[in-house]
């Protein structure tokens, strides 16, 4: 007979690979990106292309110079680029978008060692950098569903590299629109006290509102991922539950002062952050109990930053802080092994009797003395041997 090969067990492997997980996330992001382009037209399209391209080029450079593992075919840089573009305003100058993409991969991922080693979500690292570097540009939103959006760029998009973008207000005035039409619902509430309509928030279909893609669409895409188990449902549930609970409590105590929890959940980037950003596998805890704590912490921090800070939006910082807390959360939420239980004892409660007439816990207890559990394995001579 021929050659015999030797491999260690297990000899069969599951279907899931890193590429498959990442590719599915990319697929699920495509409808979100398409809707975003439908809202804001050609500027949004160019923004997504440039930011994703910058991410891919940076990743390629890091892989080629050999400082990080992974490769372009794992699609993780594509996800970073798409997510980063979705968090930027549609009229964000393209050169600034390229900077954001470079920083996201270089500082957020490459310097840590690449895929799996990053501490912070790369897309949010990129966004945090440009928020600090270009505070005006990142706060300048334009209304959605402008006429002619598929033919005409928002002028700020096309700013020359290293040049400051043109003022959006004059462009909007030429279109007979008020400069503040472009403020996000959160900024409107924070600085003017105006609450947006619930239906408009959910679908993002109302015109002249500066919002990202529809939360309903993001939730649907996230549900697909959660159903196929490409993201963990616990994290979005914990974040939305945590943020909703805190917002609801505050609303109970000061309904005039605080907005209703519904507005808190569906405005701004909370849904996008909860579904796509916080669930980044490398930067969230692996332990199931840790995921609940991590999500709850992010939800709480989001509400606190939104209500009490000078910023209208707090999801990004909340998630970055959650990322930083992840190793600590993992350490205190290690799973309890089988037969050891959370408090050191085995879980004993029989969940269901096997067969009504057959065995019950009381019956088993009746024939089983309490102090019967052996501390140590009996020695051979203590056993009831046939010879004894």
């Amino acid at each position, binding site marked *: 007979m021929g050659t015999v090969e030797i491999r260690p067990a*297990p000899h069969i492997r*599951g279907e899931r690979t890193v590429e498959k997980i990442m590719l599915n996330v990319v697929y699920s992001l495509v409808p979100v990106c398409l809707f975003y382009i439908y809202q804001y037209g050609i500027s949004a399209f160019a923004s997504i292309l440039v930011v994703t391209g910058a991410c891919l080029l940076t990743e390629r450079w890091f892989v080629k110079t050999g400082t990080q593992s992974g490769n372009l075919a794992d699609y993780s840089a594509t996800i970073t680029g798409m997510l980063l573009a979705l968090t930027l305003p549609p009229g964000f100058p393209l050169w600034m978008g390229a900077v954001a993409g470079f920083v996201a991969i270089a500082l957020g991922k490459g310097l840590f060692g690449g895929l799996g080693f990053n501490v912070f979500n790369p897309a949010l690292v990129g966004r945090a950098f440009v928020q600090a570097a270009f505070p005006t540009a990142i706060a300048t939103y334009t209304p959605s569903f402008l006429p002619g959006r598929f033919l005409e760029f928002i002028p700020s998009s096309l700013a020359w590299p290293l040049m400051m973008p043109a003022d959006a207000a004059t462009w909007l005035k030429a279109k007979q629109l008020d400069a503040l039409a472009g403020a996000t619902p959160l900024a409107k509430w924070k600085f003017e006290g105006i609450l947006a309509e619930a239906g408009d928030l959910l679908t993002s279909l109302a015109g002249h509102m500066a919002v990202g893609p529809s939360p309903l669409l993001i939730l649907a895409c996230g549900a697909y991922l959660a159903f196929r188990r490409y993201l963990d449902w616990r994290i979005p549930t914990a974040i939305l539950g945590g943020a909703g609970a805190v917002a609801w409590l505050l609303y109970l105590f000061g309904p005039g002062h605080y907005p209703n929890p519904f507005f808190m959940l569906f405005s701004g980037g909370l849904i996008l952050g909860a579904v796509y950003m916080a669930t980044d596998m490398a930067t969230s805890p692996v332990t199931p109990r840790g995921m609940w704590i991590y999500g709850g912490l992010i939800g709480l921090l989001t509400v606190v930053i939104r209500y009490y800070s000078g910023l209208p939006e707090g999801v990004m910082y909340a998630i970055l802080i959650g990322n930083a807390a992840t190793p600590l959360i993992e350490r205190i939420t290690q*799973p309890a*092994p089988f037969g050891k239980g959370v408090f050191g004892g085995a879980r004993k409660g029989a969940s269901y009797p096997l067969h009504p007439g057959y065995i019950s816990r009381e019956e088993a207890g009746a024939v089983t003395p309490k102090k019967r559990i052996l501390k140590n394995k009996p020695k051979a001579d203590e056993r009831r041997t046939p010879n*004894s």
Partner: protein
Amino acid sequence: MKLLNYFRGEAFQRGVHPPSRKEATADRRIRRLPFPPRVTVPLSQHIGKLPHAIVRVGQEVVRGQPIARADDWLSVPHHAPVTGVVEAIELKPSARGPWTQSVVIRAHAGATQEDLWGQPRDLDTASSADLLQAVWDTGMVGLGGAAFPTHAKLSVPKQAHVHTLVVNGCECEPYLTCDHRVMVEDADDLVRGIRYAMRTTGAVRAIVGIEDNKPDAVAAVEAAIARANATEGVIHAEAVPTKYPQGSEKMLLMALFGFEIPSGQLPVSMGMVVNNVGTLAALGKLLPRGQGLTERVVTITGPGVRHPGDYRVAIGTPLKFVLDHAGVEATPGLDRRQVILGGPMMGQAIASLDVPITKGVSGVLVFRHDDMVANDQRKTYPCIKCGECVESCPMGLNPSTLGMLAAKREYDLMGNHYHLGDCFECGCCTYVCPSSIPLVQQFRVAKQILRERAAA
């Protein structure tokens, strides 16, 4: 109550669902393999001390005659699997690697497969100790794969009290169907074996746990229980939801009764004794005849086998002979294959086809090179912390963190703080890992190093 179980959707927490691939052999009757020209009976086929040979070179032996005697409690006697002449007692290669002392018997041509040795005896009035001695005399070990001496398992420590005998008919490993076929075809022997085991341990009830992908086995066992005219409920067959690794006794007890065996303790501490169906069916057949274990049912299957099926194979039959009879598919020009003893999740790839079938071998799987090459070509990524392994580890460990510690050689930390000792190497973590990290392989190395450190 079944409904509640259905809504829980799980027999025990976590675990995986590998494709079962049992179709090729599940519906075929057990066939008998002819005797090979020579059998090699290793003296070490089980966990425990070596028995010593009681035959000499040149001696004629009859099938079923004892050829090795157990001196130690954790040791079992062996019986001649064929009628023939003892050719040699020497070191021979074994599946685990090291060469072991073995008895080589040349079979007489045309010798009958009927067991000629042993005296029928009446066990209806035998005491528990007599039964235990009878079990020991059969040389029985756990036929599920662990090969732990059965008499040691059935003996109850003095302080303990056993009320339930659990019979493990899960067969959760993909491909394997030997227990399935035994339950379908030898259900009467199985019920008789259960009776003996209950009387040996003093258990008042027995329960056969069978995964629900084998409804015919459940029906066959239930019919056999009815035929045996057992008092209602004393012996009972229960279907449990299919899941790997349910064949582990702790997982099966969790699935049946919903409680955990405390870490580091045996089921006997909870008044339970767990035995494999193959073991008890063999006991039911051998005990009344007073014979020894000379053959076992082995599943021979895999994509590389031309005539897959369950075969009754004499202990000591060389693997090469077995594969020649089952027929092996070869890729023309590329005659490379992998032969695995046991199932695909925990089985061991062997390096030589000269090793014999021993008492603990439940299956022989043959994969062609082409079947395995896809796994070889999977790229290994760094851990992306997806948490799949944490969600699949039946023991509730954290393989993700353990894997990272293993890469840093922090073995003491793994053992002391991350419960490495609880790992029973089921391979679920490696099976699910999307980054293709060899987790369980690293854990095996780490456990061995910790054992060596503890011994030093």
